[in-house]
């Protein structure tokens, strides 16, 4: 089986998280290997969260806001 990276995404509630919802409303299909963590603002992303996600086995971290 082809290797699939695990992606953790930190998405700002007001824009990117809404964008991810919108992708759903538009039924835009994308790979299911992403796990989204909703945050109140991209300012909430402590760099240690990103490092922890990677330490916990994430192959990539998406921060968006």
């Amino acid at each position: 089986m082809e290797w699939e990276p695990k992606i953790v995404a930190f998405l700002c509630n007001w824009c990117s998280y809404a964008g991810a919802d919108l992708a759903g409303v538009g039924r835009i299909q994308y790979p299911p290997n992403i796990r989204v963590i909703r945050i109140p603002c991209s300012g909430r992303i402590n760099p240690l969260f990103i490092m922890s996600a990677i330490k916990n086995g994430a192959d990539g971290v998406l921060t968006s806001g």
Partner: protein
Amino acid sequence: MTTKPDKVGAVMVLGAGIAGIQASLDLAESGYYVYLVEKSPAIGGTMPMLDKTFPTNDCSMCILSPKLVECGRHLNINVMTCSELVDLQGEPGNFKATILKKARFVDPEKCTGCGSCTESCPVKVDDAFNQGLDKRKAIYKLYAQAYPNAYAIDKQKCLKIKKPKACGKCLEACQAGAIDHTMQDDTVDVQIGSVILVPGFEAFQAKELSYYGYGKLANVVTSLEFERLLSASGPFGGHLIRPSDHKEPKKVAWIQCVGSRNCKIENGYCSSVCCMYAIKEAVIAKEHTPYELDTAIFFMDMRTYGKEFEKYYDRARNEQGVRFIRSRVYEVTEATDGSGNIIIRYSNEDGTITNEEFDMVVLSIGLEPSGEMIELAGKLGVELNKFNFAEPPSLTGVGTNRPGVYVAGAFSGPRDIPETVMQASAAAADSSVILSDARGTLVKKKEYPAEKDVAGDIIRTGVFICHCGINIGSVVKVPDVVEYARTLPGVAFADEKLYACSQDTGEQIKEAIEKYGLNRIVVASCSPRTHEPMFQDTLKEAGLNPNLFEMANIRDQCSWVHQKEPEKATEKAKDLVKMAVYKAALLEPVQGVSLGMSHDVLVIGGGVAGMNAALNAASQGYKVNLVEKSDSLGGIAKRIRYGMKGEDVQAYLAELASKINSSQLIKVYTGVEIAEVHGFVGNFVTKLSNGEEIQHGVAIIATGGNEYQPAEYLYGQNDRVKTLLELETDLADGKLAGAKNIVFIQCVGSRDPERPYCSRICCTKSIKQALKLKEANPDANVFILYRDIRTYGFYEDMYTEARRKGVIFIRYSVDSKPVVEAAGDKVKVTVKDHVLGVPVVIDADVVGLAAAIVPPDNSRLSQFFKVPLNQEGFFLEAHLKLRPVDFGTDGVFMCGLAHGPKNLEENISQAKAAVSRACTVLAKESIDVEGKCAIVNKKKCAGCGVCESVCPAKAVAVDPAEKVAVVNEALCKGCGACASSCRCGALNIKGCTNEQIMAMINAL
């Protein structure tokens, strides 16, 4: 004897575009009940159709949607969609409005917005929202993020409504039972105290002007169509292609003033927004294309007169390579080679003719009032101007001839979003003035049972997994997820629900909380953005703190987007539930914070804006301190004699001053400045230069502006050279009667590297004065030397009149400015005429310089209130588009020239807007915040101050004595920038703690 009926504390807002939403929110937050009446099935108006917005290039939908949600969910805004006003009886303070509620055929209370119906509907209809560029179904939602998040049926197109025995596929698809094809129209009467008309505009029908080829040539599109082409939610997902053949265009042209500035079709006004939106579309189109896109804008005058617009234009021209072609377009035809390309035949400024070929042409269509509104205005007795706009009476900003009925937004005249928002707030303020006695009488407040104390209790999490009909259940194996949830730590109960959001499920959740002693609730269903508040309400009804709730989004971000991979989607759903459960275990109740406050207002600056703000606030019953640094009220307007429509400005000022002096609630301080400011929203303490101390809840900054003292064109050296304000006095005093040749020079000190902004009012003011001169002496030769004539909106009419009356307009370019030389007792003005291509020499008796509007030194106030200035020294608002009078600092507002150049009418409107925004604070008993804010662990804090530096709300600061950070909960927005920057881990965010986020990360 008749008694006057009591005032009604409710307002009807007609039209739910951005103006209607803003007015509704202001009023609802100021203690009034609002009926928001919208004819379409969703609120939002035009903004959702736009891709990006100028000058910030923000995504239109992204900035609008928080307001949509807030408006839609507001307890005191009754959103009436598919509704129209049919009659209005009564008088200001007490009207009866008759509203026709048209059948929607879908019950928005039951509809979950899942969209199964639309998938099954066989009828395809041109999608008007997408400008007909693609299809929707007969059962549809206006746009993806629409509020209410519910479908509606197009009565004209539905098969079953036409023939009750036909079709009915949607009925089968809808598991929520929300559809009823037999629904009937309904008429309701509501009692209201005032009406705000904000129906927006209609786009000009480009077909009316056949020479532009719209409707005949496939690759001529309108600017609104182009917005949809650019939009990621548009018909082509934001991929820029020609809709006719899906080819990527290499060259795109915009033609300006389509349906505007056109007296032949009686649209002799400027639509005000097209120049900027065309530049924006060109810039964004260039960003969209991975290849070098050639863009050209064909224009007559470039009217980038708004705040930060000129710089946007400069960047587009100089950095982004948008071509600007000053021209008159004669004809638009199709190339004969079958490419579908478009040829524009145009005349250059010097009269030569050029043909240029483009792949695609965009028509910058103007704004018109809708036919329905013209009709309704007639019924309501609201007078319209000659272009059928409800232009407000002079110096009211937002009034109409009918008392108690106000107007805002594009229906009052073509205008852009920030001005629309400003006016909407202003209309709310004026409504509030007449209704202030009834403030708070009709607003609703929900009561909840006392909150259970869960501190120290063992975690007992209840998990509810939603099928959402078949939306989740058909992809994600919900029973498996429920089984899995039961194995997770702390989970005491897990169950599945057909619709978690249905009313009976709400009851079941409450029962489960009681029966199983649940103290944390997780719902796995759709998006928390739309449904979290509803579930939190259920918790409150069950006596749990709403923050003991967490959601897992297994529909919008799982089943809908992984439809072909049910196994993996189920695994993902499990993970999402696990993350939510782990976080839930660490959730703690968050208590709101309530602080006492002063309800007084401080207005800084006693010019027209400040005086209007003071009067409006006092008329609403608030005590106002009006501080003016000079010795008398009036500001720069003391030097203005005529308004743009000929108003007697001095009489107006006298009237304002007398009203202020007779008001019991306004205390005027003249010859006084601000010396110190302490505190925050609700609790400001300001020290004046006379030593007095004022306690106030809000501050309105209206420090005004000055006229630039030119260093050019012999100003100050030759007394025949004057500024417009000096000329104004001479003109009024009849001192110019003998002048034969008068020259106006525009853009003196504006639109140059030192002040790269347009001063907005000078073109109109110069023309106004030119007309006065012509009126006094028709034989006088009046010349206006200009770069672009910027008579936006209805002022265009004055420009037309001036040309008709023989005022001579000569354009000069910035690299060959007019030369002014002393010549005996006259002044010799030499300018190169672009039409003739030769220098023109004028022996002028008087030269009028349209000198820039410059801000006073606002730096001290900027520091006092922690509010920013822009590069030019004007105050910079919280958001250029949607928060035009607010600051990032709560409780501080601004209006007038302090914000940027504008005319009297606009200053008045903005002053009222500032008061409206201030009233959303003042109408409350106390400063109440949700409490999801930053919290400092003093033991850990090293006092390094990084939090203070990064906080956008200025809500945290290092206490100089204690040397630790202190959070002001009234100001904190809970964004978390401080907590993320704090190395010591001393800062955390209530409701979104480091521990909770780490728990989610560790759950992976």
